[in-house]
Structures are given as structure tokens and as C-alpha cells.
């Protein structure tokens, strides 16, 4: 059966998968219709400082009198954008490095895996802070930095799968029919690695969303871009937690966790559906 239709038919029976997709879909919709559902311009200041949540301001207002509900709705966009593009960068890098490393082996494998080990061991967030301080924390840079430092897990997983798949007889058959290395890697090995890559990609998105929020929270990157991490950053530097202004910090925090959990659920569903051993019939 076609992998996609097989996934869809299995998905209906996977509660976790449905919940994951549901959460992600809701946030994507919110990001798209943010201008429609936001009652105020998120940047517009007013005299209504630090208002409690009310029917006028669902999530209250901040120290500038900006409507936090509108800010949170607009703030959905950056985490989704950064999460998906950074994960794409990470997964592509991990995939290519894992494929080449596992397939060719030898010295290439040795070099690539030592580099991978290095990035696995170095605390990524510290490196990210340093690099964005050096090259500047524009949105594109943040995406590249997060993506460029999150590929090692994918590379490791892909490599280990390639090591086993390349010994399968169908690979030998292709070789003996004059299939070149690149052909075999992309035609025969890649399709068999993809299910795991999907599961890893979903995890990478969760990771990237979390990392982006964390970076903005501590003030790395462009703090004028509206995002959940950004809202939390201003909540923190204005001392709202100690002042008891709970409505400032809590909604973006919950959203970050929810979206992250959504992608983790998605990853779990990929894994359980594509791996027959964990699939429940």
C-alpha cells in the first residue's frame, strides 16, 4: 500500500496522532487568521496599562497597554515559521550526513561522526548565543543557527539505519545491475529511511520551537518580532512575575508547551505507525 494512505488509515486509530495533528492544525489556523481574530493591533499602545483579563482584553494588557490576546495570536506565527524551517534545515543536513556517512563508511564516516559527536556534546544553546552575537540575530540567522546545530540526532539515527539497509540483498541486486552509489542511496535506501526521518523531523520541529522561544526569552535574536518567547521576555524583564501579574507570562508559556507537545505526539504517531513492531492492530 502507498505509505501515505497507509499512514492515514492507521492514523484514525491512533489517539495520540489525532490529538497531535489537532493541536498543530489549530495553531496553524490561528497563525493564518491572526489579523481576523485579534481585536486590537498588537503593537498599538494605550493608556490601559496592565489590565486584568476581561471581556475587553481577554488576556489582559501589558505595561505599554498593548492587548496581550492579540499579541499572543500574532505571536503564533514566528514559532511555527522558525520551528518548521529550522527543522527542515536540520533534517536535510542530518539526512545527507547520515546517508553519506553510513553508506560510504571508512574515513568519511569517521570524520563525519566525530563532527557529529562534537555537536552532540557541546551545549547547543550556548553555541547559539555566541554565534548569534557574532553574526546578528535576524530571523533568517536564527533559523540557520537552530537548524545548523540541531542535525546531529537525525544524522546518527539515519546513519545507523543506512548501515543495516545497505546490507540488504535488494541493494546488492541494484549494485550488480550497475546501480551507482548515488542511485542506490536515493532510490533504495532513502525511501526505507523516510519513516524514521519523519518521526525525527516532528521532534526537530518541537525542539526548534522550544529553542527559538528560549533564545528570545533570554534576549537573543530580534526582540521586536512578536512571538511567544518575546512576550515572555518582556514579562520577565518588567518583573511581572514577582508583581503578581500572572496573565502576562502564563498564556505564551502554555502555548509553547502545547505546540511542542503537539509535535511530540506527531512524532510518536509516525514512529508507532511506520514501525510495525510498535503498531497496535
Amino acid at each position, binding site marked *: 500500500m502507498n505509505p501515505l494512505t497507509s499512514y492515514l488509515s492507521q492514523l484514525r486509530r491512533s489517539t495520540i496522532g489525532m490529538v497531535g495533528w489537532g493541536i498543530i492544525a489549530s495553531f496553524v489556523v490561528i497563525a493564518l487568521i491572526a489579523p481576523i481574530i485579534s481585536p486590537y493591533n498588537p503593537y498599538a499602545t494605550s493608556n490601559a496599562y496592565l489590565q486584568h483579563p476581561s471581556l475587553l482584553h481577554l488576556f489582559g494588557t501589558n505595561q505599554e497597554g498593548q492587548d496581550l490576546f492579540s499579541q499572543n495570536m500574532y505571536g503564533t506565527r514566528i514559532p511555527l515559521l522558525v520551528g518548521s524551517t529550522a527543522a527542515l534545515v536540520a533534517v536535510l543536513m542530518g539526512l545527507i550526513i547520515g546517508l553519506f556517512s553510513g553508506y560510504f563508511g571508512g574515513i568519511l564516516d569517521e570524520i563525519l561522526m566525530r563532527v557529529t559527536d562534537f555537536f552532540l556534546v557541546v551545549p547547543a544553546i550556548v553555541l547559539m548565543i555566541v554565534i548569534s552575537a557574532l553574526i546578528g540575530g535576524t530571523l533568517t540567522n536564527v533559523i540557520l543557527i537552530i537548524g545548523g546545530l540541531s542535525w546531529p540526532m537525525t544524522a546518527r539515527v539515519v546513519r545507523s539505519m543506512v548501515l543495516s539497509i545497505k546490507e540488504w540483498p*535488494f541493494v*546488492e541486486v541494484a549494485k550488480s545491475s*550497475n546501480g551507482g552509489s548515488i542511485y542506490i542511496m536515493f532510490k533504495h535506501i532513502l525511501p526505507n529511511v523516510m519513516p524514521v526521518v519523519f518521526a525525527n523531523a516532528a521532534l526537530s520541529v518541537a525542539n526548534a520551537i522550544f529553542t527559538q522561544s528560549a533564545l528570545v526569552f533570554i534576549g537573543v535574536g530580534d526582540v521586536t518580532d512578536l512571538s511567544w518567547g518575546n512576550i515572555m521576555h518582556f514579562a520577565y524583564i518588567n518583573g511581572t512575575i514577582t508583581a503578581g501579574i500572572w496573565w502576562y507570562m502564563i498564556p505564551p508559556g502554555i502555548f509553547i508547551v502545547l505546540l511542542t507537545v503537539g509535535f511530540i505526539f506527531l512524532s510518536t504517531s509516525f514512529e508507532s505507525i511506520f514501525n510495525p513492531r510498535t503498531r497496535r492492530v
Partner: protein
Amino acid sequence: MKMIEAKNVKKYFPLKKSILSRNDRYLKALDGISLEIEKGVIHSLVGETGSGKTTFGRIVMALTPPTSGTVKVDGIDLFSLKKNEMKLIRKRIQIIFQDPYSSLNPKLKIRASITEPLKLNHVKFDEKMVTDVVESVGLKPASDYLDRFPGEMSGGQRQRAAIARAFAISPELIIADEPVSMVDVSIRADFLNLLRETNKRENLTVLLITHDLFVASYISDKISVLYLGKIVEEGSKEDIIERPLHPYTQALLDSIPILGMGEREVKIKGEIPNPIDLPSGCRFHPRCPFSEDKCRQIEPEYREIKRGHFVACHLY
């Protein structure tokens, strides 16, 4: 004309050095194999697990180089070829593996698997050719099977597809590595007949690698018996099946279960020894019911006892 000419082929796999011993240790998968296969002949290589028969097949496919020795396919030395020449020779050889579950890519439709050798070798083909070859191996009607994934077919159907893939490019040589050992007994004869018919019709040469002397005797013209990386006996099918000389061949024959047959005549003890620490002298002596002192010390010569019938045993 000879399709395969292997001379003194050895394949040693180095083992990890231990800290204590200085000697390099090797697993001797093939320890000097010479084999000639005429064109248009079905030649079986029979041996137990660990005898090196699959390694030999991989060497003839040029999937792995031998440690020493030469292999010629149709007079061309396989391991001194340039890339382009290798491509030309590989176009003429196809392989059929034992396990139809792993020899077809689970993510490719049957059509893609079967046409792969054609595409990779830039052979022009049309829909009719594909249909014909698929139906010739018994997958009828072809349209029912071509767009399936291997996971949607039974083991027997998959093996048919694997055979269709090997036939599609009309090879001159097929290396069949245990092609029927994972197929239901009821359709084994079917597969073997398929090989036999193609062999007759297209003068196809087949190197059949099997552990089952019964399968070998069903379609082979010639049989070589392999034991621990060496050929111990070789001859025509009749020589091997009706007049086996080597005690190992006799034991293999006697181990074929036949209805109504009672006690076996030649019994061998134990399992095949490991090919790292080979026995001294004749490598079969620890399991041989007829072994003498001589067998323990001197390795028997491989000699022609009768025209075309070779054996390596001190008894003759």
C-alpha cells in the same frame, strides 16, 4: 566455451587481532577454489552453511573481490576491469537471492523492481516486454501484480517477481543463491523447471548455489560439492548422485529424506567446523566415518578419478 573460469580463488576475512596473540587470524571462507562452467550448463555448487558457497557467488557477481586467484567470465578477468568494462559484463549477469522478503525493496512497486536492471543498463523496453516476462514466471495476469508493493504479495509470488527481474534483461549467466529454499515445497519444482526451460531456450548458464543435493540433482548438469571452502568432489549429475565417491557426498545423499527409507548408510558426526581453525590434513576427517591416520596428517590431492569426475580423498 567457458562461461565461468575460476582459478584458485581464495577469500580470507581478517579477524580482529587479539591483544595477546601476534598472529593475524583469518576466516577462510574460500580456500582455493577452481571451477569451470561451460556455457549453457546448469552447474550446482552444493555445501552446508559455512562452506563458502554464497561467498563464491558474490565473487562471481563482482560484489566482493577475492583475496587471491582469478575469476573469468566469458574469458574476461573480472577483477582487472575498468569501470565501463565492468558495466558491460554486469549487464550479462543476474542474481537471484534466497530470501524474497529482502531481495525486493519494500518501498518499490513490483514494476519498478523488475524494470530496474533494464533502466540501469539503458536497455530499451516496452510495456509488452514487462508483461511477458512477468507472465512467463507465472504471475498472471501481469496487470494484477505490477502495481503492487512486495508487502502485498506472498513469499512465492515475491520470489517469482525476483526471478522475473533476473530474466527481464535476458542475461547469459544467472547466479541463483538458494532460489527455492524459502519457497513452499509444493512450488519448488515449478521454479526449477522455469530455470531449466530458460536454460534450454536461451542457452542460459546457471550457477545454482544450494545446500540441498536433491534440488541440485533435479536440474543440474554438473555438481560440485563444497566443504569448508574447498571443492571435495565434482562431476556430472549422474556421477555425483549415482556414484558418489567422497564420504561427504555420500553422507549428503543419505541425508535426503525419502519416504520408506530406513537407517542411513553413511553417518557423519557433528557440525561443520568453523573456518577459522581448520582441521589438519583432510578438512573432513573429524566427521568422516572412514578416516585413517593419513587423513589427519596429509591433505588429499584433488584428482580426476574418472573422466570428468574429480575427488579429493585418500580412499581413491
